[in-house]
């Protein structure tokens, strides 16, 4: 039981949780502020990963790699937004989900084996070096309280510190922008595009800015994820996008800390449910392999309950829901 508690708490600050929080902050720019239905956040994340990992593997510096990751996400955003942002919202959803899948399929295609490593992806030791060399932590396991993580390698204390610092930076960025006149225009677009047009704002340009910024943050999330694991196209499929959506709605769309809280709660409770199920449910009722899908089902049911009883998310304002039309 004590071990389980440690596992749950560890999950709360693991780099993957940070990466999801970051991806959800990006989606919060899209959906929470602007009302854009981006169903392809995983595509932005995967492009970020590829851009980062490939640049370093080919000898680029870590800063160049980050720039390439961002540039790819920006280009992807412009490419998707250019034809679709003039249309109704649903079209963006269709285009983004398809485009994200295209990125994944292209990445895992044998034709690009030399570039992307096809379905195997890019192994960690091919691109993590420069990042790990920057680590001020020792190159061995380090115990802090009950948590034992490597100081430098992969899911390390170093990555934990960097990942959550980046999350903190983007929380501040979101806070600043969402409370600025710029953010006010985006919220207006979320409510009614034509009204904002009639007030003299260039709606298309604002939607494009939101799409590109949110996508670029998604790419940074992808980079963090890949530094904790590896570049693996199939880990960035549709489920990843849906998880990002889930935890954004769980935390509360358009709120400042919603994505962070949502990510922590979602991933910790998944570990908790899995652990409790393993403790309490005998092996002959549910085998070890069946536990994982079982806990996902439980979490799913909980989320349905949440959407029914607290649709504004943990941090949302109930009053806002009264006017959904």
């Amino acid at each position, binding site marked *: 039981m004590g071990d389980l508690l440690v596992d749950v708490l560890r999950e709360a600050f693991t780099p993957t949780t940070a990466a999801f929080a970051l991806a959800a902050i990006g989606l919060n720019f899209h959906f929470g502020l602007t009302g854009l239905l981006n169903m392809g956040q995983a595509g932005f994340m995967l492009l970020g990963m590829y851009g980062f990992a490939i640049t370093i593997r080919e000898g680029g510096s870590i800063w160049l790699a980050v720039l390439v990751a961002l540039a790819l996400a920006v280009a992807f955003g412009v490419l998707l937004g250019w034809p679709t942002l003039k249309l109704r919202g649903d079209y963006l959803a269709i285009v983004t989900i398809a485009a994200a899948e295209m990125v994944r399929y292209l990445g895992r295609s044998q034709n690009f084996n030399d570039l992307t490593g096809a379905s195997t992806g890019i192994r960690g030791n091919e691109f993590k070096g420069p990042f790990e060399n920057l680590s001020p932590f020792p190159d061995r396991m380090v115990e802090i309280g009950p948590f034992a993580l490597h100081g430098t390698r992969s899911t390390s204390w170093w990555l934990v510190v960097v990942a959550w610092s980046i999350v903190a930076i983007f929380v501040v960025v979101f806070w*600043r*922008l969402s409370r*600025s*006149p*710029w*953010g*006010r*225009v985006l*919220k*207006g677009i*979320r*409510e*009614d595009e*034509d*009204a*904002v*047009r*009639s*007030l*003299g*704002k*260039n*709606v298309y340009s604002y939607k494009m*800015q939101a799409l590109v*910024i949110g996508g670029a943050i998604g790419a940074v999330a992808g980079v963090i994820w890949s530094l904790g694991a590896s570049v693996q196209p199939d880990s960035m499929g549709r489920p990843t996008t849906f998880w990002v959506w889930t935890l954004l709605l769980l935390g509360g769309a358009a709120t400042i800390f919603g994505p962070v809280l949502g990510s922590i709660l979602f991933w910790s409770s998944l570990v908790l449910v899995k652990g409790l199920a393993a403790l309490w449910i005998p092996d002959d009722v549910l085998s070890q392999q069946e536990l994982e899908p079982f806990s996902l089902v439980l979490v799913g049911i909980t989320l349905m309950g949440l959407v029914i009883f607290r649709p504004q998310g943990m941090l949302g304002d109930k*009053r*806002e829901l*009264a*006017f959904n*039309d």
Partner: protein
Amino acid sequence: MTDTNPFAHVRHEPGAAKEDPIIIADHVVRRFGGLTAVDVDHFEVQRQAITALIGPNGAGKSTFFNLLTGFDKPQHGEWHFNGRSMKGVSPAKVARAGKVRTFQLTKALNRMTVIENMRLGAAAQRGENLFAAFVPPLWRQREADITEKAHELLHRFTLYDKKDDFAGSLSGGQRKLLEMARALMSEPEMVMLDEPMAGVNPALTESLLDHIVKLKNEGVSVLFVEHDMHMVRRISDWVVVMAEGRIIAEGPPDSVMRNPEVQEAYLGVHHDTDLSEESTS
């Protein structure tokens, strides 16, 4: 309205030239497939006056309105606002040129507060630029000025007590008031109101009418589409009648309603009744 009446020498006929027109439109044609929704040869709107655009359902009033504000594009035609061609100009740029519209179905931004709705209406806020948004000193002063202006307008439109409520919690009539107040935030030269009375309860009607007359007294030009004959008679200086996409008559409210062509096309047996219940094109 004696010797200063700008319409004293204007002929009572379709496409009549005005003394000082703020809008001039020529040969504007909008077709939807085989249907010609708008086919206006010549149209002028007098500056600093209240002009009503009326006509039976499907006459093309709303379409013409959309064309003049950039929300729809015609097959051909030319139209000028303040001497500037507005052909192919986006709705946002039309608004920035000083011609702001409201909508038949009120577009209050429901999940924003009343004061945020108002602030959004203001022009020249540098903080609406992405990069400037990061640096509050660049826009804080302007924000304070905007807020002050918004308070002033909210007082005038009796919405001040509601300023921190979500716009979605207002009644239909209050939303109409908010939309009008918001349109005034950018200090437009002209406001175009698409059925300002639709769905407004009688208690608010009088105050809405007063607001529109007040606008004119402050030098704003007003063009509105309306079904409510009472309103048209009471506040408009000039009435333009459309039927089947064309302008069929123009004149002061009383004489235009006596025009047999108008009665035939529009009023018919409904002459002198309130038609606001009917849906529009």
